[in-house]
């Protein structure tokens, strides 16, 4: 359905705009159905998100991912001063104005005596605190300060990676990394989004509970006190409860941690794929030519691909393109497979009949509403050559078929006894579990994920995007799986290198002994209680959210409609408080008996020790579950709203809906967009040429892009952000980026002066250079081409911007840089700063606010 929505024209589509309100109501009703399904299955929801797990999965993710976080920032090494200091493209005041003007509206630039540097008043400081661009580099960004900031980041990130004071250095790494990135967006790629979003989820996890200096120090201390459960002692490393011999019990080596951050990372990877997959709706993708064009972009390939393209462009590449398209769209099924396996394994008690039917009704409603969305949107978008009635019917039929298939797999699975005429040694039972393991399983979809990124990494150079995404693979593995993999790999390495690695690797690994267990889930120190929000409270919360939306749409009050949501949250909090107290009283009444909702049965369960062993304990107590559970529901909803495609048929409500969640997502650095090569990849190679006319009238080509031989090393191994920045400045990227040109040209004016004894050039011209990539069929027919020859034969050039260095704002090198470099200072008045009159604007703004308050 999202794909269908994404098939929209770029020009305003009046018919699509007209149906937007209808689409909005249908989507709201569909969202309510989804929420109802989750509420009716609340026990599954909360056990999935809020229980505790083995920490080793997220610990390995921490190590690998943080290593690439460091690599990603260091990948911009050659441009650090250009991007992030006052000697670069944006001086401090300009950076504040172009990237965070609202946040710094009350901050003086210090350019004139009546506009001193600093916050004008307390309100201005409060405005800054509201965010979302928190960066020290907006205040101090001399090269010295920047390098100190950078080294602080490097040190914090390394300490986070090795797990020393993990939570503290995780937060500092996140803050310092975003401090660098927020200072300048010019070099941003999808890579930055991956690292920002995943890092904040990782910081939320207690990833230092395994494979960390923290845990090593903790175990050493506990061992000294005789409080650690040793691998060859009581508990086997998994801990024991208090006993006569150990009155305080023994602590496990690997404590259990809340599992939701790892699951959020998995869901985020699935979200990236399904978003980018469904947005890839252009004709180039549908024709299967995207890989051909992407591979033939001169800014990306590691080795010249033209000869291979001429041979494989019309068959192999097309098959690979479709494999990417289908794989990206279908990857998110991995989450369904994981959740379905979880539900099967946990053996949830059947829902009471009324709730079962309510759930079915909500699901049927969801299908009906999505069918309505398709039917309504059908006339205004790309239409396959079938009638809307037939297409909608097929959609409903598809879901009916899937439901029947799932039922068949549940009740009477397929049993295969013979394949290709041969009787199998053991029949294969194709049931739900088999489908979840194979068709929807990690072993298939993660292998596709690895293959996809390995191909991009091998053939193209797009920096640390692939490594970041590949690191996320570890988030899909459970702790004991990671431990087993490490043991088996270590064991094999020790056999291959017995004299070196065989001596370094722990004996347990070399001898392939059983892995150390995580904490015993039955330990009394874990959270096990019966507190839970009643179903009616959850329905009340849903009602409050819907009422808030209705108030905004129907009444549009002068007060913030989100106050309805806040009030709803307050009521929910009160209910939770009462529920937790009751649960506590229940526990006290039953003192001595095992206290736990020990099976995930809504109707309550016997206190079965076996079930206690089967089920993971809670990650938090009742209050923690309420807070984290609410935030998770909010985060998932916010990301879903944020990623609604920018189409005319959603135009009546998308901006308002995004505004409602923007504050949260931007401040948590989880705002995101995944339209890579969507709807179509570029079909021409675009470069930026910089021509400088010096004081003597001589024109110099700075050779800033791969049209120049020195900028095109082959094979291309180390990534450079230069190419991305050039495309963004000169118009090779989507989005309103042309404003960068004047600042870049002015920077070149200053830089030229800096490198030529303070002598400014006359002018700087930015020239767009481009040539079209021949189609796959042309290349196949005419043979491969040599990029340099084709550019010389069919390239175009156009001057996109000209800066007159003497007169343009900031076209002159300011005196504070001249002083640093020991160059002659400019006479008074020759430097032209950017006067923004912020003080006057701020005073007027304050006056308007006080007048409004008086009325």
């Amino acid at each position: 359905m999202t794909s269908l929505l994404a098939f929209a024209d770029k020009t305003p589509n009046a018919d699509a705009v007209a149906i937007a309100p209808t689409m909005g109501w249908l989507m709201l009703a569909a969202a309510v159905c989804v929420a109802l399904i989750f509420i009716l299955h609340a026990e599954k929801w909360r056990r999935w998100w809020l229980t505790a797990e083995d920490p080793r999965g997220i610990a390995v993710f921490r190590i690998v991912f943080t290593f690439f976080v460091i690599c990603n920032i260091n990948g911009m090494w050659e441009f650090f001063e250009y991007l992030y200091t006052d000697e670069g493209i944006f001086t401090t005041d300009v950076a504040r104005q172009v990237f965070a003007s609202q946040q710094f509206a009350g901050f003086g630039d210090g350019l004139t005596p009546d506009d001193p540097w600093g916050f004008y008043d307390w309100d201005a400081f409060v405005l800054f605190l509201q965010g979302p661009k928190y960066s020290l580099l907006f205040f101090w960004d001399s090269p010295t300060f920047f390098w100190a900031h950078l080294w602080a980041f490097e040190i914090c990130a390394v300490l986070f990676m090795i797990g020393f004071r993990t939570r503290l250095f995780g937060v500092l790494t996140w803050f310092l990394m975003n401090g660098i990135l927020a200072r300048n967006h010019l070099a941003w790629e999808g890579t930055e989004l991956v690292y920002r979003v995943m890092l904040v989820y990782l910081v939320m996890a207690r990833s230092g509970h395994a494979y960390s200096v923290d845990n090593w120090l903790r175990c050493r201390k506990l061992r000294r006190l005789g409080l650690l459960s040793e691998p060859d002692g009581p508990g086997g490393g998994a801990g024991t409860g208090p006993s006569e011999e150990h009155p305080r019990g023994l602590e496990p080596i690997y404590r259990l941690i809340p599992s939701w951050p790892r699951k959020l990372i998995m869901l985020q990877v699935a979200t990236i794929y399904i978003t980018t997959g469904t947005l890839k709706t252009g004709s180039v993708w549908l024709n299967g030519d995207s890989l051909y064009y992407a591979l033939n972009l001169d800014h990306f390939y590691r080795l010249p691909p033209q000869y291979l393209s001429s041979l494989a462009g019309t068959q192999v590449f097309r098959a690979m393109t479709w494999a990417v398209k289908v794989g990206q769209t279908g990857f998110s099924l991995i989450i369904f497979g994981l959740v379905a396996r979880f539900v099967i394994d946990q053996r949830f008690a059947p829902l009471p009949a009324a709730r079962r039917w309510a759930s079915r009704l909500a699901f049927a409603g969801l299908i009906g509403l999505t069918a309505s969305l398709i039917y309504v949107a059908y006339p205004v978008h790309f239409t396959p050559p079938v009638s809307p009635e037939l297409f909608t019917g097929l959609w409903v039929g598809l879901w009916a078929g899937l439901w029947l298939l799932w039922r068949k797999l549940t009740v009477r699975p397929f049993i295969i006894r013979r394949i290709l005429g041969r009787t199998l040694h053991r029949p294969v039972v194709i049931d739900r579990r088999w489908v979840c393991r194979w068709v929807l399983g990690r072993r298939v979809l993660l292998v596709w994920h690895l293959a996809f990124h390995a191909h991009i990494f091998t053939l193209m150079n797009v920096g640390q995007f692939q490594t970041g995404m590949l690191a996320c693979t570890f988030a899909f593995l459970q702790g004991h799986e990671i431990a087993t993999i490490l043991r088996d790999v270590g064991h094999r390495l020790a056999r291959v290198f017995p004299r070196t690695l065989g001596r370094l690797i722990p004996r347990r690994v070399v001898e392939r002994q059983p892995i150390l267990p995580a904490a015993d889930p039955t330990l009394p120190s874990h959270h096990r209680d019966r507190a839970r929000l009643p179903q009616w409270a959850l329905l009340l919360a849903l009602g409050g959210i819907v009422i808030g939306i209705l108030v905004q749409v129907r009444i549009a009050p002068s007060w913030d409609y989100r106050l309805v949501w806040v009030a709803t949250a307050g009521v929910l909090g009160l209910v939770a408080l009462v529920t937790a107290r009751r649960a506590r009283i229940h526990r006290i009444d039953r003192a001595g008996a095992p206290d736990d909702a020990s099976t995930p049965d809504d109707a309550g369960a016997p206190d079965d020790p076996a079930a206690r062993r089967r089920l993971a304990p809670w990650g938090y107590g009742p209050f923690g579950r309420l807070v984290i559970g609410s935030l998770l529901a909010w985060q998932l909803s916010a990301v879903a709203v944020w990623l609604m495609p920018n189409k005319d048929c959603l135009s009546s409500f998308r901006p308002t809906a995004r505004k409602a969640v923007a504050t949260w997502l931007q401040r948590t650095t989880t705002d995101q967009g995944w339209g890579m090569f969507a709807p179509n990849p570029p079909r021409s190679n675009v470069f930026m040429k910089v021509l400088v006319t010096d004081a003597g009238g001589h024109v110099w080509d700075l050779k800033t892009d791969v049209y120049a031989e020195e900028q095109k090393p082959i094979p291309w191994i180390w990534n450079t952000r230069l190419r991305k920045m050039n495309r963004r400045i000169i118009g090779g990227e989507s989005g309103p980026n042309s404003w960068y040109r004047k600042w870049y040209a002015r920077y070149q004016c200053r830089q030229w002066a800096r490198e030529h004894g303070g002598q400014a050039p006359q002018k700087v011209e930015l020239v767009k250079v481009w040539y079209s990539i021949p189609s796959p069929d042309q290349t196949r027919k005419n043979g491969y081409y040599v990029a340099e020859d084709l550019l010389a034969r069919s390239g175009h050039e156009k001057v996109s911007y000209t800066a007159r260095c003497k007169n343009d704002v900031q076209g002159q090198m300011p005196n504070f840089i001249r002083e640093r470099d020991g160059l002659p200072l400019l006479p008074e008045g020759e430097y032209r700063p950017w006067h923004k009159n912020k003080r006057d604007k701020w005073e007027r703004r304050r006056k308007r606010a006080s007048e409004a308050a008086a009325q």
Partner: protein
Amino acid sequence: MTLLAVRLIDLAIFGSLGALWIGGAVFIVVLYRWILRFEASTPPSGADVVPKTPEPTPTLAPTPELASAVPVPQLAAASYRAMASHP
């Protein structure tokens, strides 16, 4: 003629892609072998495979040292198996 005109560097990509495909195929074989062995060694989770409370190890002499020797491996396996149903 087309092939004769090709530069050596234009052929390098075949080596890269070929190495990737061969390496990838080997990786998949190794991975699937490991998965199948791992599954065979780990019973599926669920109530029917919940490990029983470990029985005490028979001891010949009830010395204090031996009395504390709880049968570790069973408890250890039970512990991680309990988590195994959490994807």
